[in-house]
């Protein structure tokens, strides 16, 4: 009885992990005019969680979020930071209610994000891979 239930648990965990890898088709992007060519997932995560405010080259980083509740946003944070929407909310509430900062600004949709990235070489965002075009550079290492 024990071994089958253990196997079932392992299978369930693999399913969750596998499912997340498959779902993580959201990529971090900057303007194609940006000086930033690559960033690790950890570096992107630190910028979006507000722990780091500069790119490795010293330039100020301006993160832009997708709309709250959007699938791209939830997938991005899960894949890059391991945080659920509720955990992310708690993370920022802790910062906001101690006067230490504000969450990134958000844009309503992918085309607006591309527009903001094009307008500001210091901006960094994330897009579903299908929304990537020549105006942005995918940061993958």
């Amino acid at each position, binding site marked *: 009885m024990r071994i089958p239930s253990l196997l079932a648990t392992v299978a369930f965990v693999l399913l969750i992990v596998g499912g997340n890898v498959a779902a993580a088709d959201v990529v971090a992007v900057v303007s194609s005019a940006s000086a930033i060519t690559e960033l690790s997932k*950890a570096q992107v995560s*630190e910028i979006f969680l507000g*722990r*780091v*405010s*500069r790119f490795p080259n010293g330039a*100020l980083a*301006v993160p*832009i979020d997708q709309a709250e*509740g959007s699938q791209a946003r939830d997938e991005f944070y*899960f894949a890059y*930071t*391991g*945080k*659920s*929407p*509720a*955990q992310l*909310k*708690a*993370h920022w*509430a*802790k910062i*906001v*209610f*101690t*006067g*230490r900062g*504000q969450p990134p*600004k*958000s*844009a309503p949709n992918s085309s*607006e994000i591309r527009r*903001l990235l094009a307008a500001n070489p210091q901006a960094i965002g994330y897009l579903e891979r299908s929304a990537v075009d020549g105006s942005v550079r995918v940061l993958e290492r």
Partner: protein
Amino acid sequence: MLRIIAQRAQRRAICSLVAAMLGSPLAYAADEPGASMLSLSAFGTLGIVHSSEDRADFTSDLFKPNGAGYTHAWSPDVDSRIGAQIIANFTPQLSGMVQAISEQNYDGSFTPHVEWANLKYQFTPDASVRFGRIVLPNFLFSQSRNVAYTNPWVRPPRELYSLVPVDSSDGGDFSYTLHSGRVNQTWVGTYGVTNSKKPNGGTGNTRRLWSISDTIESGSLTAHLSYQQGNLTLSKLHTLFGAFRRFGAQGDALADTYDPFNRRLTFFGAGAMYDPGSWFLIGEWGTTDFHSVLGKNTAWYASSGYRLAKLTPYLTYGQLRATSDRSDPGLNVSSLPPALSGPAFGLNAALNSILGSMADQKTVSIGTRWDVLKDVDLKVQYDHTRLSAGSPGTLINLQPGFQTGGTVNLFSIAIDFVW
């Protein structure tokens, strides 16, 4: 008198800060999307607590007059509160914040009080200074303890969080963040004073209060170290020890040992949290020395939880120990004239009742958080507390018939939100 003037000046400063923020032109909109001059936010908790001990009250804060057990079988006063905050960004560097909270006050009222009110100047993204009212960063969850949505539990473990009264300090702080590789280290220094009113009708004031803390973040790991010291005066107890001083040299000696009048309080704390997303492990330890009748105390807790979709069940163990003597022979009654022996007995009894009531206890807690809706959680928690022999633990309002050294079971339900 000076204190009243200082308090008035403080209140005036806070009022003008609020007025400045409300009255400042909204036209100062930054060019980024959604960037706003003013941002409003709110948080709250609606909770009820039941205690198995009906001859004493359980409460969540040293400043609350009563709670669950004796005063209310089911108390809404332990955890319920509502808070609102306004942040004004005057320039990219200069901002101000005011946070007011309505919760059960020392006198039982729910009149809102100002928890935070300060002006911040951000020199660089990694360096800032704030002037005004701030909350001291003693523990990992001290500054955000009121925003229960941000915590895994119904409330931070009482064992550790009752060690020092977590309080607002009027003064300021500086913060500096260092980045090296994947490690971010934030140093915070604070300086100020605290003024609080106690449920017993007295006041508690801390002068020359400073602290330094270091928060180290690396990936899923957060570590926190803090040191704090100040000069504490508790008015009610100071009055009691004034009576000791009427008994000559031996009375003076006792008062010099115990009188919490301008007495150095020191606190050292260390904690760490590992939270990779699907589970968490948190441990914190702290020790205080009040250099007075409040003695020395050491506490720690460990807590772990596992996230299953929207449910996060957790288990916590906490321990609080009084490490200084819990009794004293007091005044030598036989050396006194018979007329003074009655009052001396009374004073000795009062001294020993304070020393004996030092909190010493252990708690096992089990509970779960449920993320019900966006921005709303519901938590259910069961605590089993064992009071050490002779100690009432952190319970207050002890009634005739209360037995020290027993066990207490608590059941809590709370709904938390942020907005």
